[in-house]
């Protein structure tokens, strides 16, 4: 048994255990026991059956899917819980990413300063970056929500689409802010020292020994573990919120069940709160993404990747259901990355239609995702996993009143 593979695998145990807790039914004890067993068994299977390259790919694929899951959870607390139509996820995603990048990096010095510009670089720790990213994004959400949320649902869609475009234009053009059209590089990766010399100062000797077969290129596993824990924390918090009286109130307002009993002002206030919470989570997602990518620029936040695909994830997984949001993120990210390879295979067939088509194969994926969203809206607007304890569907009740 390869000690490097086992060391890699050890990063999978906790995430798999958490996943087990989430999906295995039964009493608490059964859950915990089965989850522990499953986590170890699956980890062992992965570590023995996969080679290092594929194993690394699984880790980094899952990390990206989990980042999308966080964004999807953020959207769920806006759309699923309160019915807000946010077509500008990219705005909150990107402002979170750039904020945390600015908070965690240090100002470029020496030669670097001549070709990389940024407004400031505070060199703060990872978690501070995440928190500040969430707060800045929440403030943006609050600013957008105030004028628009009391109006029709599709005005919010228009306004958020607009804010996303403007924020992207700012990051694209303002070089002083975050290096403009050039990537902002060198975003720190937390706990890189686990797999890279020198070792972390807090690291006990047994851990140093255990991880000694790993090198910097195995960082994906460390990041995978960190993102999994963050996702679990966000999921638990959202489940708490959604089952609280506050969450029930949100759903009641969404379904227009108690709005008559409340003043319009209070309703708007409640609706703004859930929008701000969603914005916060999206900002956190952005921060995690920035550190995962190490270098980011405006082109990462085009509407397709940063808004549209997240909608497809949530709608497929199940609006109003946090598990659905996570499931949808994994499924769509799998389809999205999987079809890339598929289109490469299809290249000869595509060439028969037109010589240009193989080079444009990527756009077939656009089309596929667009068709998927259309089909979901048409045939299964509630998604794979239905909302629990749902009072009413998003579909109005049989055109009442007509």
């Amino acid at each position, binding site marked *: 048994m390869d000690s490097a593979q086992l060391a890699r695998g050890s990063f999978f145990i906790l995430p798999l255990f958490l996943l087990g807790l989430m999906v295995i039914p039964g009493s608490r004890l059964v859950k915990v026991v089965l989850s522990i067993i499953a986590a170890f068994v699956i980890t062992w299977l992965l570590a023995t059956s996969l080679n290092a390259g594929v194993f690394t790919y699984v880790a980094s694929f899952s990390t990206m899917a989990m980042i999308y899951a966080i964004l999807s959870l953020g959207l769920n607390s806006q759309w699923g819980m309160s019915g807000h139509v946010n077509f500008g996820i990219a705005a909150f995603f990107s402002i979170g990413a750039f904020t945390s990048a600015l908070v965690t990096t240090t100002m470029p010095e020496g030669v670097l300063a001549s070709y990389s510009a940024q407004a400031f670089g505070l060199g703060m720790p990872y978690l501070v970056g995440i928190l500040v990213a969430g707060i800045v994004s929440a403030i943006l959400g609050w600013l957008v929500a105030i004028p628009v949320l009391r109006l029709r*649902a*599709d*005005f919010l869609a228009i306004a958020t*689409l607009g804010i996303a475009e403007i924020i992207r*234009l700012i990051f694209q053009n303002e070089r002083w802010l975050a290096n403009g059209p050039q990537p902002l590089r060198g975003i720190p990766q937390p706990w890189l020292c686990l797999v890279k010399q020198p070792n972390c100062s807090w690291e006990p000797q047994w851990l140093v020994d255990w991880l000694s077969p790993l090198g910097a290129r195995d960082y994906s596993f460390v990041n995978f573990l960190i993102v999994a824990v963050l996702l679990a924390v966000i999921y638990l918090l959202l489940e708490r919120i959604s089952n609280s009286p506050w969450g029930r109130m949100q759903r009641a307002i969404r379904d227009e069940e108690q709005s008559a009993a409340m003043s319009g002002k209070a309703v708007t206030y409640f609706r703004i709160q859930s929008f701000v919470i969603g914005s916060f989570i999206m900002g956190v997602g952005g921060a995690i993404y920035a550190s995962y990518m190490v270098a980011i620029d405006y082109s990462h936040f085009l509407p397709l990747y940063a808004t549209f695909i997240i909608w497809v994830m949530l709608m497929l997984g199940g609006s109003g259901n946090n598990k659905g949001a996570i499931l949808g993120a994994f499924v769509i990210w799998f389809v999205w990355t999987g079809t890339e390879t598929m289109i490469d295979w299809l290249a000869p067939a595509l060439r028969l239609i037109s010589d240009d088509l193989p080079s*444009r194969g990527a756009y077939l994926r656009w*089309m596929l995702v667009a*068709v998927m969203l259309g089909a979901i809206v048409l045939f299964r607007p509630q998604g794979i996993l239905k909302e629990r304890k749902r009072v009413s569907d*998003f*579909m109005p009740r049989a055109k009442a009143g007509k």
Partner: protein
Amino acid sequence: MTTDNSTIATGDEPPAQERVSREGATGNSRWPLYIAIIAIFVLFWVFGAINGKSTTTMLNLTVEGIMLGGILALGSVGLTLVYGVLKFSNFAHGDMMTIGAFVAFALMQVLPGYEAIGSFSFGWGLLLAMILAAPVVAALSLGVDFALFRPLRRRGASVVLLTMASLAAMFFLRSIIYLIWGADYHFYYQGRANPAMQLPFGITIQADKLFILVLALLMVGLVWVLLERTRMGKAMRATANNPDLAQVRGINTERVIQWTWIIAGSLAALGGVMYGLASQVRPEMGFVLLLPLFAGTILGGIGSPVGAFIGAMIIGVAFQLSSAFIDPTYGPGVAFMLMILVLIVRPMGLFTMGGD
């Protein structure tokens, strides 16, 4: 089995309550909005002067803005009609314009009439291609409606689901554009000079842009006549105003919806071609216009074609005037700010139609 009385009451007469509350909301005055718009123009003009722009420059920017307004109007009039009759924001509208521009581009390659007419930069070929692109885009939007929006309508889907479907349509249409034409920029007339004409007060303007304005005026006039004078036009207004009553009066509302798409699609094609002529033809061109289009539509009052025309003009002028003192890339941002201002001051816009 007994039936709950309150359920029946909701089933029988909810419109009464809705109507009262909506009508109450329209009591708002238009004046704050007028004043805000005038103040913004004055402010923009002053900012321009502070940035050392001469009056002639500002005047020229205003004229340019009116021309841009013409392009926007071709889009926003269709957008507002769709909104009025179908009651949702069609996010795919910008991409319908893009498709129009590309279809005309493709048609021009096979059509004669490349030589320029008079002082315009375009020839008969472009006009012909534009006229042929209109039914293509109209047919395409009918197709999207048939496959996507109609089934949703039939099952009484909410506005948000329809809006989301239009987002799917937007990405679908754009993927088609990318698949057929790729990501490159194209010009209708590569490298052809388009000299500006001299007008009084130091205004210089290209003949093409005058054409755009005249076309926009003509089309908006046509739409107005159609809505006010023809049977189908009146039925469209009636359906926008009160779709249930329209059915009661024997109006086939599905037919009305089809005509709405035909008009909106055709106008979008014309707008796309004109935008392509004024700048270049590229896959993201319509998406760039989407925000100004919505801004113009909301400013004018959703559902009102005349309002959409005036709203588009205001947005166009504000867009160009702002370039005197901020980076023109932020034009959409200016449009956005104006839109937010309208939503704060008077969400129903300058004119209102529909929404009973």
